[in-house]
């Protein structure tokens, strides 16, 4: 796996290991970001049970602080793992590229536009840098966390609710996969329009990632509705 990454993204040993680490850090952060939902779940539950007394204040205070600290730590680790590591790696990549150029046959330099070569060398490195620090760990990490979170939801909550939350994930991936080949082919007008669709889908995918988090919160409803019926019956009994 490490070797495959090294080849695909032009990484050194350490760079590949760092990238894997960054992916897991993103996944970890995403999962930590689910903890607030647990706190809120408890809050609503207490409210519905009419059990939200002042005596619970310290408990909530500690829970909230703990979660906030955990989030800060997770973000700190993730920041280090994705940004610091890639920028260190980028220096290594540029130097190894320079070494490689030095070893090319002499005739190569007579034939190639040197400006182009330099542009390629520097520009592509910057691109790979951005991809490695921003997109790739973010993408793979959120994939991991989405799978973990959705699995727990399918197991512990109503599977129909979970399905309602997560159908967007495979659909958007399918859409992106479907259109990813298109960019490689020479664009004509139809393809260009298709690319617009792709971009639209991408933004939907971005939104769906957050809406997954949102909808998970909505899954509280189910419990809510059940409770509300109980509450109502209790009220009517009182009356």
């Amino acid at each position, binding site marked *: 796996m490490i070797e495959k990454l090294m080849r695909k993204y032009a990484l050194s040993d350490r760079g590949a290991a760092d990238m894997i680490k960054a992916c897991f850090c993103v996944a970890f952060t995403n999962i930590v970001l689910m903890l*607030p939902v647990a706190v809120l779940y408890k809050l609503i539950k207490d409210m*519905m049970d009419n059990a939200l007394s002042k005596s619970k204040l310290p408990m909530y205070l500690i829970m909230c602080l703990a979660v906030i600290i955990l989030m*800060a730590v997770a973000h*700190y680790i993730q920041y280090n793992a994705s940004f610091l590591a890639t920028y260190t790696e980028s220096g290594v990549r540029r130097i190894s590229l320079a070494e490689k150029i*030095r070893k090319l046959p002499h005739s190569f330099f007579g034939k190639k536009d040197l400006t182009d070569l*330099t542009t390629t060398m520097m520009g592509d490195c910057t691109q790979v840098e951005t991809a490695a620090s921003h997109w790739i760990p973010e993408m793979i990490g959120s994939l991991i966390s989405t799978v973990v979170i959705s699995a727990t939801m399918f197991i512990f909550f109503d599977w129909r609710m979970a399905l309602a939350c997560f159908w967007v994930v495979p659909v958007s991936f399918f859409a992106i996969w479907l259109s990813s080949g298109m960019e490689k082919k020479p664009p004509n007008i139809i393809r260009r329009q298709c690319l617009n669709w792709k*971009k639209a889908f991408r933004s939907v995918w971005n939104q769906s990632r957050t809406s997954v988090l*949102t909808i998970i919160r909505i899954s509280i409803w189910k419990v*809510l509705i059940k409770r509300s019926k109980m509450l109502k019956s209790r009220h009517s009994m009182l009356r």
Partner: protein
Amino acid sequence: MEKNEKINVMKIIDPYIGKSKGVLTLGRFLAALSAIIALIPFYDIWKILKAALDGGERSEMSSLGWQAVIFTAVSMILYICALWCTHIAAMRVQANMRSSLMRRILTLPLGVFDQAGTGKLRRIFNGAASAAETYIAHNLPDKAAAAATPMGLLVLFVIFDWKLGLICLIPVILAFACMMRTKGKVIQQKMSEYQNALDVMSSEATEYVRGISVVKIFGQSVDSFHRFKRSIDDYSSWSVTYTKLMRPSMVGYLTFVNAIFAFIAAAAFVLIKGEITNDIILDFTYYIIVTPLLTVTLSKIAYSGEQEMTLIDALRRISGILEIEPLPDAENKAVPKDDSITLDNVKFRYKENSEMVLKGLSIDIRAGEHIALVGPSGGGKSTAAALISRFFDVTEGAIYVGGVNIKDIPQKELMKKISFVFQNSNLLKTSILENVRLARPDASEKEVMKALEAAQCMDIINKLPNGIHTVIGSKGTYLSGGEKQRITIARAILKNAPILILDEATAFADPDNEALVQAAMEELSKGKTLIMIAHRLSTVTNADRIYVLDDGVVAESGDHEELMQKKGIYAKMFDDYTRSAEWRIRR
């Protein structure tokens, strides 16, 4: 970014938009509309929640649910339409920008291309055009949406429970404070230092690649590699410093933006007094659902600046080139009387405040005279030749061709009068015929052949698979430096201009080529005013007059004999030269 440096992006883009302006406005409007409509489902959710808590009808709930789905779909379709509109406008802008930049390039002084490098120019222009495209196609609609969402959100926030709404806004304000820190002065300064490190690295990279032939011939890592490595290390360390500097802000921002839950929990203890009613539960649940939307909107706004920065950077690079004034074309439209050239106390510097390269150069060349410019490198030979062809305008003094100031001669006339052959000869990637014909597009194939013959190019033509129809640069047909120069000489012969400027190529690898180029040049210069920039002195002994340029002025002049008798710079140079030549032969 300094305030006064701020570029109004829309203003710059405006002239390129043309008829698509309406489409762009429509696209932005649709994007904003889509963002507002996307909020309606959240109102539906509130109603569903209310119905659920109050034990409303199931059918009512499901119809509200469908309403939410429909509004989401409508919002999505509107967004796609918005993207279509902005893409149409973006493509138009990109195309217009490219063509108008290309037109502008044609008016720039010829010397700019030598100085800036054609590759760099191309990169700058293409970069700016595509940055503008991305910006218009994606950022403008997203910005419109990002501007519309907070307004809608504020309504959603305040109408239900304004106290709870305000409490939820506290972490948002804290997050923004963190974000603002990244725009502070210290960080901006670091940012520009980081940019400098990036620039240094790029130029060192160019140096390195240029010097690579030398590195290879001597088979070792020389200084250029170490310098390049150091610049890479510098850049890396700047990146790391910069990232570390940004770390507290970023971590703070991300933490606060996700900490809204804690404030909701706190609000529960502060706001709830007495019994918990369904309405209270409804409000809290609703805010739990809605607040993530706030996080998303915030992040969108926070990151929207990035693309704009790229575009501003690209536009700034462009304006750096566009600021170069085109040389004013002649107003008087005078025609030179003969083929003489006079440099009258010419002073020149490449950039304002830089050192003068020419410091009062005066040379008189009669029509038909053959002169040579010699002297140490950096003495101003090539600059003088470039000024005669009006690659740049002189800083002080004047240059006359045929008794007329070259500023008064229309560019076309001047170009008809002068042809030049440079050290590094550029051939276009087309057939040899077309390459030579550039000098005179109406020339017949026969005339081209004659010119090639006069330029001693027949051996090149004969060895090529398709003769003069061979496309240079395709399928392994590459010409050596000397061969290329002979082709450009043929070009000059075909043009047959009365004034000729030759920048003689420095050392050729093979003596055969050297002899042929020599012969070709002699053929070319027959009966013409010739200015030769000589790097090897063997070729100048026949010149009518030799000017020795040193430090931007004429140090000596005269023919070969006179100068040898003077025993000045020239005599010394010539002695050195013959000694080295002898040494070369004996070996």
